[in-house]
């Protein structure tokens, strides 16, 4: 049964399904890959996560905007989502840190929003048919067929090279908090603010480099370790990052990657990546560390995954590697580890923001790796 609904805005999917709702935020139209996020908190972090670049994000939690928008929680300097779909938008934000409402914020940043009753139907649709392109039109003037045509004409996520679009233009440094222990080169493929902060808290001076940084650029810093961040787009397109990482691996420097960084490590090891049907986006995903059996509840935001043999170690150009973490929901690869070199990565988000802090220990692991005599700068090279 489809019921009429108030509001003049529409969300149009590439397969022709249309949802009606009320416009909020900026007026206009927007296109992107339609994805859903099941987190019940943390919309501000979600909105500002560069990995959502060119995606229209639907929140499954029904009330969004309740705590307004503050100046401390953004994960980057701007809102990245291409459009924001909620069921019910708060009129009165309530939180002691709130500075403005979500509606005002999206308006300010020119981001189109739609509030519509059908967010669950949308989620079920995407779950069954997979992520797809969509458009939000706050005041549609053309018939639906034409809107679908326009959605179909928008670029696909497969083959999209987006990391450079969201990356910093210039390198910058996040100083260590307290005594400096390590120099870390962090390749910004869409980095979230929480990542350098957590590294800095552990005594890392973090040199954040643009996505296009080469191995030479990275090694020129003489870092104790190299970090590859999360980011948007199809990992299959980021050859430059793979090339840079190859150089770093050859130099034997400790490597830690998150999300997109995990996929780049996978590719550098000769593994393929593939697009998941509808991805993992939320803050409740169970990831098991296969060495300890321990399960972390973790934050996820990925539409692609690494294709790696999960049943045991496998050979790579850099020695043996293994799948270190798996998702217990669908068995998807969530982490890689080189057994003979100091490099590891995870597909999920130990920096959380939004999400649980269960996996924050991975940053300590990275520091431990940088401190290990055999991998330490100037120590034994492989």
């Amino acid at each position, binding site marked *: *049964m*489809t*019921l*009429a*609904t*108030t509001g003049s805005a529409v969300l149009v999917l590439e397969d022709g399904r249309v*949802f009606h709702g009320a416009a909020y935020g900026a007026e206009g139209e927007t296109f992107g890959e339609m994805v*859903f996020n*099941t*987190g*019940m*908190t*943390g919309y*501000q*972090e979600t909105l500002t996560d560069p990995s959502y670049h060119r995606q229209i994000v639907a929140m*499954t*939690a*029904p*009330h969004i905007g*309740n*705590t307004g928008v*503050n100046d*401390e*929680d953004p994960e980057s300097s701007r809102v990245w989502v291409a459009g924001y779909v909620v*069921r*019910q938008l*708060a*009129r*009165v*934000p*309530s*939180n*002691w*840190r709130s500075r403005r409402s979500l509606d005002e914020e999206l308006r300010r940043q020119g981001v189109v929003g739609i509030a519509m*009753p*059908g*967010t*669950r*139907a949308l*989620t*079920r649709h995407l*779950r069954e048919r997979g992520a797809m392109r969509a458009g939000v039109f706050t005041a549609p003037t053309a018939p639906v067929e034409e809107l679908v045509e326009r959605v179909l004409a928008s670029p696909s996520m497969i083959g999209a090279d987006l990391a450079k679009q969201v990356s910093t233009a210039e390198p910058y440094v996040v100083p260590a908090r307290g005594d400096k222990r390590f120099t870390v080169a962090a390749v910004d493929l869409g980095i979230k603010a929480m990542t350098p902060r957590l590294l800095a808290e552990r005594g890392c001076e973090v040199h954040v480099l643009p996505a296009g940084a080469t191995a030479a650029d990275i090694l020129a810093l003489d870092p104790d370790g190299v970090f590859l961040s999360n980011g948007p787009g199809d990992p299959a397109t980021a050859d430059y990052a793979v090339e840079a990482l190859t150089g770093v691996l050859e130099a034997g420097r400790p490597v830690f990657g998150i999300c997109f960084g995990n996929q780049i490590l996978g590719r550098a090891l000769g593994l393929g990546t593939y697009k998941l049907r509808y991805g993992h986006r*939320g*803050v*409740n*995903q*169970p990831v*098991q560390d296969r060495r300890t*059996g*321990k*399960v972390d*509840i973790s934050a996820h935001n990925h539409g692609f995954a690494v294709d790696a043999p999960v049943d045991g170690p496998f050979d790579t150009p850099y020695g043996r590697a293994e799948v270190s973490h798996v998702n*217990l*929901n*669908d068995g998807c690869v969530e982490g890689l580890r080189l057994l003979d070199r100091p490099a590891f990565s995870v597909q999920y988000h130990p920096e*959380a923001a*939004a*999400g*649980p*802090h269960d996996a924050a220990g991975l940053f300590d692991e990275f520091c431990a790796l940088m401190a290990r005599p055999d991998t330490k700068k100037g120590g034994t090279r492989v």
Partner: protein
Amino acid sequence: MSKRTDISSIMVIGSGPIVIGQACEFDYSGTQACRVLRAEGYRVILVNSNPATIMTDPEFADATYVEPITPGIVEQIIAKERPDALLPTLGGQTALNTAVALHEAGVLERYGVELIGADIDAIQAGENRELFKRIVAKVAEEHGLNAESARSAICHTIDECLAAAADLGYPVVVRPSFTMGGAGSGFAYDEADLRRIAGAGLDASPTTEVLLEESILGWKEYELEVMRDRADNVVIVCSIENIDPMGVHTGDSVTVAPAMTLTDREYQNMRDVAIAVIREVGVDTGGCNIQFAVDPRTGRMIVIEMNPRVSRSSALASKATGFPIAKIAAKLAVGYTLDQIPNDITRETPASFEPSLDYVVVKVPRFAFDKFPGADQTLTTHMKSVGEAMAIGRSFPEALQKALRSLEKKGSSFSWTGDPGGKDELLAACRKPHDGRLRTMQQAIRAGATLEELYEATSVDPWFLDQLLFIDEEARALAEGELGAEALLRAKRNGFSDAQIAEIRGLPEPGVRELRHRLGVRPVYNTVDTCAAEFAAKTPYLYSTYDEETEVPGGDRPKVIILGSGPNRIGQGIEFDYACVHASFELAAAGYETVMVNCNPETVSTDYDTSDRLYFEPLTLEDVLEVVHAEQQAGPVAGVIVQLGGQTPLGLAQALKDAGVPVVGTSPESIHLAEERGAFGRVLAEAGLPAPRHGTAVTVAEARVIADEIGYPVLVRPSYVLGGAGMAIVYDEGTLDAYMERAGAASDHPVLVDKFLDEAIEIDVDALFDGEELYLGGVMEHIEEAGIHSGDSACALPPITLGGFDIKRIRAATEAIARGVGVRGLLNVQYAMSANILYVLEANPRASRTVPFVSKATAVPLAKAAARVMMGETIAALRAEGMLPATGDGGTLPLDAPIAVKEAVLPFNRFRGVDIVLGPEMRSTGEVMGIDEVFGTAYAKSQSASYGSLPTKGRAFVSVANRDKRAMIFPVKALADLGFEILATEGTAEVLRRNGVHAKIVRKQSDGVGTDGEPTIVTRILDGEVDLIVNTPFGSPGQSGPRLDGYEIRTAAVLRGIPCVTTVQGLGAAVQGIQAVAAGSVGVRSLQEHAQRLRG
């Protein structure tokens, strides 16, 4: 790591009778645990004194002991059964305390019983305030988290108090040390208050010490439900936010899940603290609950407390999320880890995840202040509600409005008719937390209150206040313009019922419904799937909403829809849930697909495992009709059962039938025959059965005429009542006049005036009738005389003083009524036997409160049999298949059958100042069963299970009304012979002395302290010098003198928790009980053993 194989038998302790603060949520958790443990192959030994629970059904454990949950009795059971392990975390505080007592007494060690799912140190760390404070400080420090305990200071002088208050900031809480029951505590808002309260407090404290604590009144309140396994995996199952800020017990608050007003940073900080605290406390496996207060101005967070066990909140969280905490806790206790346990709902993903909700859940409490006139109705940190309803919606307004109508209490839903009253008065009323405060706030909004004004008055978070303002705006919009599909849909999405829409538009409710259906505005049903639709759900646990897609699965099997009983209230509680659950189990076994509709989150019926489908919906006509419609769309519906859920579904019977719904069992017309007095009178007349003489009066004059004609005493009550509401026994004209004036003011309905059969024996019967044959389920004889509500009266089965001839008469009368009314299924009849005449008091063509008790006492599953009869099966067929005994019934129990005594449990300790004397209005919240060879022992067990063990020595105080003096002599003599020292008031003592019982005279309260400082009886009771009190009431309410004396005596008894007998029949029973205990003849026997004897 996996399931433990080094243990093979596990004891589970239940929570005993339903009391305020510990209700049927522990039946839900215990039932889940027993099922899980048995499915895992363990031998389960269960102890629970509450017969109305599903968990005490013999098929849920290998050995089921309906015995008092006292360390002594549990030790006997341990000695007999020799369990390898004890799981104490699923039976509330009762089970946990019993486990600690057994540990401290060395019992567990002596019998080699391992405590699983809990750890004594962890229990103590959770309960010891100082220890817990240190833990909070430690984790905050070590993990750099925002977490504290409330700041406090211990002071010994006024100057210290002033200095401390300057540091803590006003207001401060003042708590004198070591005073009884927190005497002298209070809030000081300024220096003058502090000087006064702390001054008095320092005086009152034997150590001249007061604790000053910062006030967190008005702070936001949250709870997290946490689970941890032995591999240290931890998940947060659910966050719950209290709409009522700090100061109202969470059980009395309106709560919402998930939390609505936290940023991710705040939520994750809370989550980190919760996890760090439970690790530090050392809860190694299982569920626990942790509560927080957050200062809305600064975000400062205080950890209030944690419970290292399954709780009321965890039942709510389980229902709210679809994550079965108790079931998983039981699995964790036997060694599984979270990742090894599949999520039942998705079946593909594991339990090691955190549920994500794409809906809002609201829980509202239900109170029973009308039953306790004189009780303070302000909501405080002391829980007072007797039940709760939960509702699910796709938005807060929808969920809230559904929850309010789920309360089934007039005046609970928001309303837009009539004059709301003055804004200032309404705002003033909102300051004090009370039952229905949200509605008072809504009326204040109607009267023009702003968000700021409401916030100032209530400290309710502005986000929630805006939701109330939004609902009000929507109501106003609804009042105007065309009532088309668009407007209806919008109203429905915000939770407005057809009745509310009708009220707002001045239309009849059926008209709105008809219009809505014509316009195609109908709800869809979404699934509670634990994952916000990320994965497909395999378990149909549904709620209605006005979204775009319905998720009701289709199917060809005929379906039976069972309507549950809604929120627990006095008179309608767990007993009805029991009957519904039984019907569901039995009809599923008989090949039907079972569909449950209910809105009570505490129950077994709302476990998604109980029925094939679960609709978590209000039990209003509108909501039920929509469920029936949705199910009919999805496949054939064989019938709807309204007879098992108590008065709630029964009240819908006729309207459902009128709407074409196939109501099975006793027809609505037959229900009417039993419920409508005139019609029922004709049924009785035709059968030649006498009823007490009666009449119906509207005016005082009419009532007087009737009373004169039939003779005093008379029983008076409003013409339609539930649980005896508004009933009274009137002995004289003056009292009758007063009653009629009050009744006239309270309602327009006429008053029923019945001859009250003084000194009659009251008898309760549960029977099954298939149209041909009557199966007498059980005949219960009340221990208290007629006039005390059957729900509050203790009773014995088989009846202890009725002979075979009496039972024959009862059987014949019951059959005549069943036939005359046209019963198909269960029938409950209440009789009074007076001067050898059997009077019919009333008949209820439905499952009664006593069905579970009778089923357990006679080892016959009455509710299951009833469900089959309602679907058309005959009693003969049920006898043939073995569900019912091949021959005989509950009226022909063998002479050596065990005696079961049911005792009611009353909540007087929650309502200080309320007289504990029993009357025709039901006030008990729960019940226990004592079962043994002979009446005395069974009665003693029932007392020990409900109020504490009967004393076997010490001092007994006796003060009885004149009419009871003759009957009291013999039992009091027996007490004296048992070695009790007898104290009595003057009149009673005289009678006793003349009969050779030495009784020491004590001063009444109204006598005051004697010239030589002799204390009054009340003082002696308060000082703990009395072990047993016998006090039967006399005089009328409101009179001073003897009546007031009795009241103060009984109040003191409640305060000190001393057994207090208020009827002379109760005294006889108590003496038999004391003799049994003194003789040391209290043994334990499982229901399975009893059944073996009863049914072979």
